[in-house]
């Protein structure tokens, strides 16, 4: 089963949430932001070049122009490779664990896997972020020595920052899987 719904992020941008249910206890959630638009790319490039040209007319040194070209090219590459995340995926399999993948605009992928016996719970938490107070989804990890305590908090969908309605959707599905997982471990 697969469906796609449109939500928004905390700044009002468009987000698409894709849900893929491979089986009832193996689910994938995929939050994708819109790709880098040609308009913003052109406007940033134009501003950098105009500033560079302004400086060039002031000090009449042509290295400024070549530097500006290098800066825009390198900046674009760096932005696509290290900053701009197009898609964030959360894959939860009840007997195995949780896998989080973030794919950058350049195609680079970053994957983290958390075993199920380390996961204590998945919760929605509140935080003060810049000049905002936001909700975020996070995975609580068990402390290996004291299973009752939490050793670490791993935020999910860190770059997309979806709003509460989207988070609740994901949260509810994850809780269903976790509840099933707990029931099976206590039975065995």
């Amino acid at each position, binding site marked *: 089963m697969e469906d796609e719904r449109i939500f928004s992020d905390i700044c009002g941008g468009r987000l698409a949430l894709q849900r893929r249910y491979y089986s009832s206890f193996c689910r994938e959630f995929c939050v994708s932001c819109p790709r880098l638009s040609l308009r913003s790319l052109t406007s940033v490039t134009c501003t950098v070049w105009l500033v560079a040209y302004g400086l060039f007319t002031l000090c009449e040194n042509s290295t400024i122009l070549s530097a500006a070209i290098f800066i825009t090219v390198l900046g674009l590459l760096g932005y696509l490779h290290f900053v701009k995340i197009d898609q964030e995926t959360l894959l939860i399999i009840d007997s195995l664990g949780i896998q989080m993948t973030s794919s950058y605009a350049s195609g680079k992928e970053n994957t983290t896997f958390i075993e199920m016996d380390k996961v204590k719970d998945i919760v929605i938490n*509140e935080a003060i972020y810049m000049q905002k*107070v936001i909700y975020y989804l996070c995975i609580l990890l068990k402390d290996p020595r004291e299973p009752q305590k939490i050793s670490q908090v791993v935020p999910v969908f860190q770059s997309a920052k979806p709003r509460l309605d989207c988070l609740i959707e994901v949260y509810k599905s994850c809780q269903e899987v976790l509840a099933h997982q707990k029931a099976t471990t206590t039975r065995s």
Partner: protein
Amino acid sequence: MACRGGGDHVKLPSPPLSSVNPGSFATCPTSFHNICMVSDFFYPNMGGVESHIYQLSQCLIQRGHKVIIVTHAYEDRKGIRYLTNGLKVYYLPLKVMYNQSTATTLFHSLPLLRYIFVRERVTVVHSHSSFSSLAHDALFHAKTMGLHTVFTDHSLFGFADVSSVLTNKLLTVSLCDTNHIICVSYTSKENTVLRAALNPEIVSVIPNAVDPTDFTPDPCKRHGSITIVVVSRLVYRKGIDLLCGIIPKLCQKYQNLNFIIGGEGPKRIILEEVREKYELHDRVRLLGALEHKDVRDVLVQGHIFLNTSLTEAFCMAIVEAASCGLQIVSTRVGGIPEVLPENLIVLCEPSVKSLCEGLEKTILQLNSGALPTPENIHNIVKTFYTWTNVAQRTEKVYELVLSEDVLSLNERLDRLISHCGSVTGHMFALLAVLNYLFLIFLRWIIPDSLIDIAVDATGPRGAWTHHYPHSEKRDDNEKVSETR
């Protein structure tokens, strides 16, 4: 009126027990408010304002309101925390400038405070303490956003020196367009009205309360001989000179009489002189400065509490002592006669002779066993100044405030210019306009519709509902003790 006895409990509506089951909302007499308490001073910092905010919030939550607290971050305590019964506290990452008070630019806190007011759907902003700049900032922003505002003043100020002239001017500006002001005593009201040039009709008096569970009697801590306890700052106003006359007189007359004196101040030296002169080192103990948490342990050691104040607005010390089961002997000054009923207090004129007579009469009663037992006194006193009563009266202030209109920007500017002098008035009117423009800018960047509405922990739609059966039981208990 500083309330006397349980007299005015009866008139007030009973706690909204119907908040327990959502089905009966329509029948509930009181409406519920979303209250935001703002102050720089909150736990983990310790003090009177902090405990006032906490206790008041807890009582308001039990009465079914939604309460959140906004303060600044204390070291590693930042972000959002929940306290008992789902009391939500925002520790905002603002820079602390001086004495736990944040720096103010009047604008920098607007984005965060606006975000919080919108997401929590706050209807009343209640600021505490005139020393807290965050509280004043919040009032300023709340008025810009068109929310209802209440301010509680916890302290007395002078008029003479430069710093108090400046703070009084700022207070005038801050309070001239605030909907309602609460003071903790009548002296405080008089002081605030004069300092901030206010209309006395918008100032209410709601006294502080004592947590009776903190001040419980413990008669086995008492020694065989009779002990008189004095706990006050050792200053002229507290009548320490009278005390110096009383001590030798009574000590000569009664061989089994001891004094315990707690507190510090410039008059300590004359007490020490008296002790030296009459060789009373073993019978008069000077404890020096006391922490608030140690006061109870000192009070329970005595039989009689002596208060020799020459002027007093509302004496909290005698309520605390009576709650510990001590018999009170006090001077008849200021608001003291209103604080306790006659059978619990012996009132004397502020003279050595009259106070000695009062004390002798009390000692005689004590020896003959005519006085009520400490438990009896405690049980009577604990119903007088309860936080539930404070919460009920504060609730009435909220209802009054919500029935009024918030000043529009025009009226607010007029008020500022006409009220605060031409220079200050125009300056702050300009700032108010700038703040309004900043708010419009913020609304354009992040419209209100983009701000997620927070999940309520307390109030009518509270998520922590499993706490309500418990609070219902407690409300019942309180009702029983009030009717007793």
